[in-house]
């Protein structure tokens, strides 16, 4: 009976195969139906699996393992292909298939005029397949299969419009940066095998639970895994691919580069919580990198003028919060934030897509303004999402972010302070974006103004559903201080309880908890007010490119020159090395040496041949000289 859940990833795979093989022969309508339909089936099955977990939990021990086949075996290494459905994977199943389905539906409208409509849906279905594989695997290697698979789909979809070589470069960059992380992940997996003799979660964690804390090998494993996470989830230092990834069609940015794929790193660490709890140093590093990324990316978001770039840096920043949560032991909080972020960030991207659609492809917010009256549904839903991401209660983002900040406070007061600073910046750039886009006068061309229209209902219905979720999504985790029960915490407790016991935060008094919340919310409100004052009241518009700005602004505007730095430190030297290896070592040293050996043999044989002159006199002379020499040496 459980084997029915095998179909969860198989349906999107089937969709990919059918559309991929026959997409050109069937109508767009049918492509859309197959594309959305297969994901819908997965959604229904995921809900079914979910209901099983909350219904008959105690009977099945809260998890189901399905053995598919033995994949790789060599000596005592074995990597079976198994699926594991437990609360954590099931929760991700719901997010992936739920958001995935909505974005598929949205794409039917958004991509309708694209000649490669079928290819788009084929890739999208393939992505869902790999993403489901990533969370369903019961071992690190199966996770890695999904992990690289989604990377491939990301590459294919960033470079979806492959005539544009800038897009192709962005796609290559994404793949290669991810590969850098993947190498860390791969070595981590191998070290797990070497240490535990297995790569299956259950077997690894069973052995690990008897390990002492801070064992070097566990620190090494967790850090290697984290390297993988920084690549996929766009954390410092491997984050620069994500803003460039916005070259892909907007639904892709929403699905892959905001709601699902980029949260794979969080899933990975949450899944490995037992290992991380054993390595406090790694936890510190995760939290530190997360926090630093959160603020660093947020500041870049302040100065971006491309609507999707702002959202991209915002995603990097929010992912940083999730890592902060993981690092301070708020595993549930991190997963909670993954969830709410999936709602409001997907909504923001889809809203941005609706705006771009209306603006005939324009993405520069300096050329927008006043779109409120043309795009009422987009405006309203975008507004909700902006409030949600800023962390205003009772919208979804507030609860999840609060949980992370609360844990951060008990972990280290300074972390809390920086976290609040980050949300202040977040609120500012989000409302800056919101005001510049929807308020004020329209600043685009007349032609664009003439064309402005609200998007079709295949696009607006997903927006509305996501808006509702962004409003109520936080109620699955109401903190105790409000007298609610943290439903998500209880649901995920089979996965996290062992770690929660070890990293349980010091109890905080309710009054203190409330104080912290109020401070954070007030700070955010002040920030929103300043954005309102500066961009709406004073009607400031970001300056055009090329206008002089002060050096600090300029540095941030150029994203701290990170791309230029990487170019100078990695790309150029590598190309230089490649040239020099070829021209100097290969051709001038090795090959010349080889040829020299060859030529000297030829030369010697040529010289030796000269000795054979055919004059008997010469031979006798040589013989006599030789005999004398031999005798001479004998006498010595």
């Amino acid at each position: 009976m459980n084997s029915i859940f095998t179909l969860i990833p198989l349906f999107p795979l089937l969709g990919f195969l059918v559309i991929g093989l026959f997409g050109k022969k069937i109508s767009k309508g049918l492509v859309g139906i197959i594309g959305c339909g297969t994901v819908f089936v997965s959604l229904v099955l995921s809900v079914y699996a979910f209901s099983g977990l909350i219904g008959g939990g105690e009977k099945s021990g809260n998890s189901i393992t399905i053995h598919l086949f033995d994949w790789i075996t060599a000596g005592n290494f074995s990597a079976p292909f198994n699926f594991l459905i437990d609360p954590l994977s099931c929760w991700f199943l719901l997010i992936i298939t739920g958001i995935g389905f909505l974005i598929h539906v949205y794409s039917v409208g958004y991509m309708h005029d694209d000649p490669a409509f079928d290819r788009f849906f084929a890739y999208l279905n393939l992505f869902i397949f790999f993403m489901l594989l990533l969370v369903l695997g019961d071992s690190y290697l199966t996770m890695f299969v999904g992990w690289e698979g989604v990377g491939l789909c990301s590459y294919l979809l960033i470079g979806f419009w492959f005539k544009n070589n800038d897009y192709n470069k962005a796609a290559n960059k994404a793949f290669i940066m991810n590969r850098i992380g993947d190498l860390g992940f791969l070595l981590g997996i191998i070290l797990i095998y070497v240490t535990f003799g297995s790569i299956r979660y259950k077997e690894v964690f069973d052995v690990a639970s008897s390990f002492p804390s801070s064992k070097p090998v566990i620190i090494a494993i967790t850090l290697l895994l984290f390297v993988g996470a920084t690549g996929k989830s766009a954390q410092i230092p491997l984050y620069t691919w994500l803003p460039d990834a916005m070259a892909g069609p907007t639904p892709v940015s929403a699905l892959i580069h905001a709601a699902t794929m980029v949260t794979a790193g969080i899933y990975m660490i949450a899944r490995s919580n037992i290992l991380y709890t054993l390595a406090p140093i790694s936890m510190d590093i995760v939290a530190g990198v997360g926090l630093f990324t959160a603020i660093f990316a947020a500041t870049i978001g302040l100065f971006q003028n491309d609507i999707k770039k702002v959202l991209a840096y915002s995603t990097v920043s929010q992912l940083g919060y999730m890592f902060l949560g993981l690092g301070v032991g708020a595993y549930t909080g991190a997963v909670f934030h993954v969830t709410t972020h999936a709602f409001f960030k997907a909504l923001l991207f889809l809203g941005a897509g609706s705006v771009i659609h209306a603006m005939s492809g324009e993405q520069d917010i300096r050329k927008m303004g006043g779109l409120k009256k043309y795009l009422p549904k987009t405006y309203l839903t975008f507004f909700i999402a902006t409030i949600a991401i800023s962390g205003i209660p009772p919208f979804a983002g507030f609860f999840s972010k609060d949980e992370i900040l609360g844990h951060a406070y008990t972990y280290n007061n300074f972390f809390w302070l920086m976290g609040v600073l980050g949300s202040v910046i977040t609120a500012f750039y989000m409302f800056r974006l919101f005001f510049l886009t929807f308020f004020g006068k329209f600043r685009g061309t007349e032609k664009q103004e003439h064309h402005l229209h609200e998007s079709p209902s295949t696009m607006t219905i997903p927006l509305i559903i996501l808006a509702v979720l962004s409003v109520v999504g936080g109620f699955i985790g109401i903190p105790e201080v409000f007298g609610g029960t943290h439903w998500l915490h209880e649901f995920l407790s089979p996965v996290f309880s062992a770690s929660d016991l070890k990293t349980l935060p010091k109890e905080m008094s309710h009054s203190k908890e409330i104080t912290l919340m109020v401070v954070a919310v007030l700070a955010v409100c002040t920030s929103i007010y300043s954005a309102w004052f500066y961009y709406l009241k004073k009607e400031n518009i970001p300056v055009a490119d090329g206008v002089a700005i002060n050096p600090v602004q300029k540095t941030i505007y150029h994203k701290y020159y990170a791309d230029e730095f990487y170019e100078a430190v990695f790309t150029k030297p590598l190309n230089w090395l490649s040239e020099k290896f070829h021209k100097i070592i290969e051709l001038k040293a090795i090959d010349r040496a080889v040829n020299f050996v060859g030529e000297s043999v030829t030369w010697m044989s040529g010289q030796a041949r000269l000795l054979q002159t055919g004059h008997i006199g010469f031979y006798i002379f040589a013989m006599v000289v030789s005999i004398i020499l031999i005798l001479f040496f004998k006498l010595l």
Partner: protein
Amino acid sequence: MNTAILILFPLVAALLILFLKSEQVKKFALAFSLIELVLSIYALSKFKINAEPQMMVNLVWIQSLGIHFKVAMDGISILLVLLTTVLVPLIILSSFSREIKNPNYFYALILFMQMALVGVFTAMDGFLFYIFWELALIPIWFICLLWGGENRARITFKFFVYTLFGSLLMLVGLIYVYLHTPDSHSFDIQALYTAGASLSSAEQTWIFWSLFIAFAIKMPVFPFHTWQPDTYTNAPTQGTMLLSGIMLKMGTYGLIRWLLPLAPLGVQQWGHAAMILSIVSILYASIIAIMQKDFKRLIAYSSIAHVGLISAGIFSLTVQGLQGGMMQMLAHGINVVGLFFVVDVLFNRTNTQELSKLGGIRNVTPYFATMFMLVLLGSVALPLTNGFVGEFLLINGVYQYNAYMAGFAGLTVILGAVYMLRSYQKIMLGETNSLTSTFADLNFNEKAVFVPIVLLIIIMGVYPKPILDIAEPAIKHIVELIHPAVIL
């Protein structure tokens, strides 16, 4: 079923082809190679999964010298025989849409080469192994010399002399061990194993290096590789495919079958050096590949990198490393043939293989673009392709040997993506230009080459178990020979 049939059949076929007076000689060649494939599959069906060499033929050849015509297959052999019998029909088919001068000689040489290759992979007698090893060189030398590109005379000569030099070193090593076999002397593999293992550490050092250099030239491994990029680039497509797809596996096979068991102490002492050379190969060749302008030459360098990893895995002396090596030999053979066929398709239509002159082809050829992409994914070892299974096990093996070396070897994961994606972008993506705007999509014969390759890439990646199962007992046997103390 016996192994000798698999060797004799291509030889007979080659002779028949040579004297065949028909316009359709290529079709006969294909038919013969397909019969050989069927024969090998039949042999597979009779194969029992254990460490024993099976389907043995053992005839006295030169009594006084203890030389036997002894051929048989264990798991390692049968898989490489299958690689040969699968690839040869594809290689022949890849020439169908091309103009080939003197087709009788061309196809006869390919089949003759197949005979020698199957012989190399199944010989269980040291002298016989050497004979097949040298026999394999002759047809490929003619193929490169007669059907090659511009500088073929000079380049082919260098290739020939270089590999011949290696073979002679190997012969000296084999004879030295042979002279230490008991009383009447024998070239039988078991006798050589016993004799080799009983030699002193100093003697084994010499055996190790004489064999290693021979195999290192064949694979090739840094710094014995400089014949390879020129030869691959100048040889006709089918010659390059034979060289890279099958012939270089003679080198890696030689390591497993002959070097490791023959000089276990030598391996213990000098394996580290071989490991370092292998890893240098990976990095050096990958880095050079990045800036190559000629796509065929780029693949030649990428091949050095891949083989370097195979060699490193083998020298890890772990079951995972050797299994990975086995798997990657097959995967690399298939993928590299696919890649060289991509080059052939490009060159056939545009008369160039320079990256800078191409571009935008994907706009006009969706089918070719997909095939190329899938072969590329196999080559960069994406999970669920054949390349991943091998690469993962190889890096795993190297890691158990030395974690830092695995870190360096693993850089191939990144660098491979760098040069392959860069190539794909330059060739396939962007806007079309005057050269590529009329690029025709694949014809039937070309599809017939790509489809089996692509299917193998995916099937072997998703379900590699049968292959691993077949190889495992033989691999374990080899590992036990090198260090019996290791607990598997």
